[in-house]
């Protein structure tokens, strides 16, 4: 039995791929002996050796460059950025090279690299340890951006990410790293990368979210259920590319929608989802789509972070006003 947390599911997936494919390498700052600051790579160096699980010098652009160079050689690098807020020095290499290598060479070279990073707030961390800027990556053609919100999805999606022939930004919602345990058999079975997951069927409205906010979203659905409101819940999981079909399918049924994300509102991924629904299902809409999101301000230091992160109360409020709209 493998009753494990999301964090342990990450470790389990890494270990599975390391064991089954010698082209897989894991590296980043402190991922070796220390097992990463969250212990996502705990024990991997000991088990697979320091030539497969290695600490790098402290330089993120270099980490990305290493991954790209290795990937072009047919390896399957899995690079870790310690926190999403420290991935920015690597943006140039990720946007200008990882995302473009296949297209630039008409397929002669490829970039099957995974860039893992913990993201999001709510763990009382210092400044820059709580970013949710997934929209930056999601806008860039050539990238895939994947966000698990349960142990099983973390395992299955990370396997898929490592096996993908194209670069994947794999965002790990650290707030729910250890929130729940789930039985996740270590069977090496990957999940599809382009699919959203309907976590709960409902008829009155659709709640759409991803990552750690799935937690509050699901709690909100419980509250709503108690008040007789039936919410369908979609975990987007792959924010790039988006599984528009699953979203539209639900909207055509419910006609009402609340999108929840922790990132700042303006230009967040919620905007793209809302725009697509407006494009393709406008006249199914019975109420304006609401976005319950972080504010257009920097994620505050932790004393105020819970006033920033979308709360159950805010989601419930938005859901009710959406359902009550006529």
């Amino acid at each position, binding site marked *: 039995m493998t009753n494990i947390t999301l964090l342990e599911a990450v470790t389990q997936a890494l270990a599975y791929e390391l064991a089954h494919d010698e082209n897989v390498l894991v590296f980043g700052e402190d991922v070796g002996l220390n097992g990463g600051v969250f212990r996502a790579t705990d024990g991997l160096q000991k088990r697979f050796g320091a030539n497969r699980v290695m600490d790098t010098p*402290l330089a*993120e652009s270099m980490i990305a460059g290493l991954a790209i160079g290795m990937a072009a050689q047919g390896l399957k690098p899995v690079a870790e950025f310690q926190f999403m807020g420290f991935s920015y020095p690597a943006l140039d290499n990720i946007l200008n090279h990882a995302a473009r290598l296949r297209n630039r060479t008409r397929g002669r070279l490829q970039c099957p690299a995974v860039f893992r990073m913990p993201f999001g707030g709510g763990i009382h961390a210092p400044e820059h340890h709580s970013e949710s800027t997934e929209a930056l990556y999601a806008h860039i053609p050539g990238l895939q951006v994947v966000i698990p919100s349960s142990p099983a999805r973390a395992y299955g999606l990370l396997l898929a990410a490592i096996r993908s022939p194209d670069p994947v930004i794999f965002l790990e919602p650290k707030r729910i790293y250890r929130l729940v345990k789930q039985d996740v058999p270590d069977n090496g079975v990957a999940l599809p990368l382009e699919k959203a997951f309907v976590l709960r069927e409902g008829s009155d409205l659709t709640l759409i979210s991803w990552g750690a906010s799935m937690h509050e979203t699901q709690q909100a659905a419980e509250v709503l259920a108690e008040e007789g409101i039936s919410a369908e819940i979609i975990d987007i999981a792959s924010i790039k590319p988006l599984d528009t079909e699953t979203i539209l399918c639900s909207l055509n049924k419910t006609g009402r929608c609340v999108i929840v994300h922790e990132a700042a509102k303006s230009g967040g991924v919620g905007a793209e989802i809302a725009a697509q629904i407006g494009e393709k299902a406008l006249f199914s809409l019975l109420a304006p789509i609401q976005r319950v999101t972080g504010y257009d301000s920097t994620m*505050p230091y*932790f004393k105020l972070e819970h*006033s920033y992160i979308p709360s159950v109360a805010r989601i419930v409020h938005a859901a009710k006003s959406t359902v009550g709209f006529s």
Partner: protein
Amino acid sequence: MTIATFTIDYHQYLKPDGTLSQPLPKDLDHNALLKLYRLMHLLRVFDGRAINLQRVGKLGTYPGNIGQEAIGAAIGHAMQADDVLVPYYRDCAAQYQRGAPFHKILQYWGGDERGSDFNNAEDFPICVPIAAQSVIASGVAAAIKYRQQKRAVVTTIGEGGTSEGDFYEAMNVAGAWNLPVVFVVNNNQWAISVPRSAQTQTQTIAQKAIATGFSGEQVDGNDIIALHERIRMALDKARNGGGPTLIEAITYRLCDHTTADDANRYRSKEELDMAWQVEPLVRLRAYFTAQTVWDDSKEEALLLECRKEIDKEVDIYLNIKPAPVTDIVDYMYAKWPESLKDQRETLLQFGDSHHD
């Protein structure tokens, strides 16, 4: 054919046993040294309290300075009031001397932005993203140079941080433009779990300045006298148009990386024990004792005084009123955009209910 030769020097005044390896520099008398000794103690007491506050849930993650007190102390003392400090996150002693009271430092690590609104108009707050402070420091120095002022900038970084491109870019422009900035590297041997040897193949960190065309040097980072003298000289040089200097201060992090870290996972007890033998406070105390300006009762009195001062600061910190939730948006721009005023209203409506 050899066309260029470079050397790196090492500086020390106070040996680990407290004896001098060369005569005291003229500008550091015993009074000044006693002041610095007190400061280092104060910081060590502060660090102990901060780490305890974190353990009992009254502070966030905190990166201790234990073992590295001499560096910040020397920087703070050597700088002039109108110089500018652009620090990394392990510089309490320097920040304190330059107007950031300890309760503000606690407030910062307690998850409150107001901690960086301290009583110094120009110093930068702590920089968490590693090495960005280096390029920003060169920018500050460029402003000073543009205005032809006689001021200088000190910026700090860990030895791990010297692997970042920003560190190199900052030094390169400082060299190219002959900027008044001193780069001080806290080489505490570890970058979280990554040892100095894995960070770079170089024999010294100081030699990284050779890549940018100015002088770098190693200083015993547990020797407050050497640190102060070399930093003072580098600042003088900078203020007088002599350009940048890189100072590698060799020290050791005696505590965990932060309160979220467990150094036992990656380093040996033996190494740690050895490092305790050469740390800056014991050494300076040995010197004072030999000079008969110090004894156990003075030490005890000093410690008591430090504890009292820190108690007061902790007290202030613990009684700071929470910030209004609207602080989340109100400092983003000089004026919150008209088009986003509904966001501020939502914040007012929902923000407070989630205080924890």
